[in-house]
């Protein structure tokens, strides 16, 4: 079984570098174009199911994939981005200024810190892996399924698959609309592709 983990397209907040988690921010024009290119790329793939975070930026991206396949999109709140609580809509310098102690704690243990009024990356990882494991039980061994979600969610899943400490989640960088692939063989998961963004235009490709 192959799980294609897909990050949503760009939003105005991505472009401005603002922190956001569960805020409902739609794709910007560039993000819509990324999603369209992604949909084209996956058009020929025999995709069996599309699961998506229920946040609007993920759902719009999932529709760009699903429209080429005669399958419904199943939304799941367990795939949401990290709940960043009070840090929603803030820039990093604002957080550094307003929450100096918590920000220091974040830098020391980025996986453990519970965002004020929100959750930790470790909690995010737990809920996301529960969802992923549930999809695995619902599908056959040759199925290809898409899971459209978020940069933090994908990094947390990749950490779990690799056995990488969640405190190192920032080592895993995922571009908007890039594809990360997990292969499941006899219930063992392996990372077989990270951040494939070949469908991005040259100017976007790092």
């Amino acid at each position: 079984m192959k799980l294609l983990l897909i990050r949503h397209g760009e939003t105005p907040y991505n472009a401005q570098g603002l922190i956001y988690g569960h805020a409902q921010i739609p794709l910007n024009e560039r993000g819509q174009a990324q999603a369209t290119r992604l949909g084209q790329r996956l058009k020929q793939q025999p995709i069996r199911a599309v699961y998506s975070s229920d946040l609007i930026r993920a759902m719009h991206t999932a529709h760009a994939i699903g429209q080429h396949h005669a399958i419904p999109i199943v939304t799941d709140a367990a795939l949401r981005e990290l709940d960043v609580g009070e840090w929603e809509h803030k820039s990093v310098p604002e957080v550094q200024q307003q929450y100096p102690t918590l920000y220091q704690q974040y830098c020391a243990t980025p996986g453990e810190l519970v965002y004020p009024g929100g959750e930790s990356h470790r909690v995010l990882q737990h809920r996301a892996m529960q969802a992923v494991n549930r999809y695995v039980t619902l599908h056959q061994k040759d199925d290809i399924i898409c899971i459209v979600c978020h940069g933090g969610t994908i990094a947390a899943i990749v950490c779990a698959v690799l056995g990488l400490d969640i405190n190192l989640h920032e080592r895993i960088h995922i571009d908007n609309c890039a594809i990360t692939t997990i292969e499941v063989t006899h219930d063992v998961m392996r990372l077989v592709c990270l951040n494939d963004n070949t469908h991005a235009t040259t100017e976007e490709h790092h």
Partner: protein
Amino acid sequence: MHIMLVRHGETAYNAIGRYQGHMQISLNDTGFAQATRVGTRLQHHQFAAIYSSDLLRAVQTAHAIATHHHQPVIELAGFREIDVGLWEHLTVAEIAAQFPTDFAAYRTQPGRTIYTGGESYAQMQTRAMRALATVMQRHDEHDTICIVCHGGTIRAIVCAVLDLDIDNYTQMWIDNCALTTIIQQHGKLRLGNLNDNAHATQ
């Protein structure tokens, strides 16, 4: 700096699942076709240099890339695959039968166990990272360089970049001629992508 790590194309031993290590084995027809495709994919990149493991399968793959750039291939033994010692030429089933103790140790600690008469992944990682540091000193932050090497070598480098325990190298996979990118920014290394093999089907 962008460091593009390319695994060599398929060999006859890859196709039948035999360990090859430091053996001098050529690409097979599939491997040459894969090398041609990766060469075409990378033809518009500006490489400051093209490096390769000095093992034949890597050098052949590197030449398929270098031909588009009119650049020499610089061979470095530090980027060789793990030395598999007495496990050379064998399948996993044969290794399990002939070296049961070492193979059992390998199954428990795949990164730390020394292949009978060869080296461990941890040892190979040390020499590969030393070779990478040597190469990086020759270039500046804006350069892109290409290094053609091996599935084990690439996974060991990725473990070092992520700070992932070397015993967990088995949790990832690299296809023949797939691209893996390491980015050096502000003095730090990060993983740009892993096992991008989009050119396999193009």
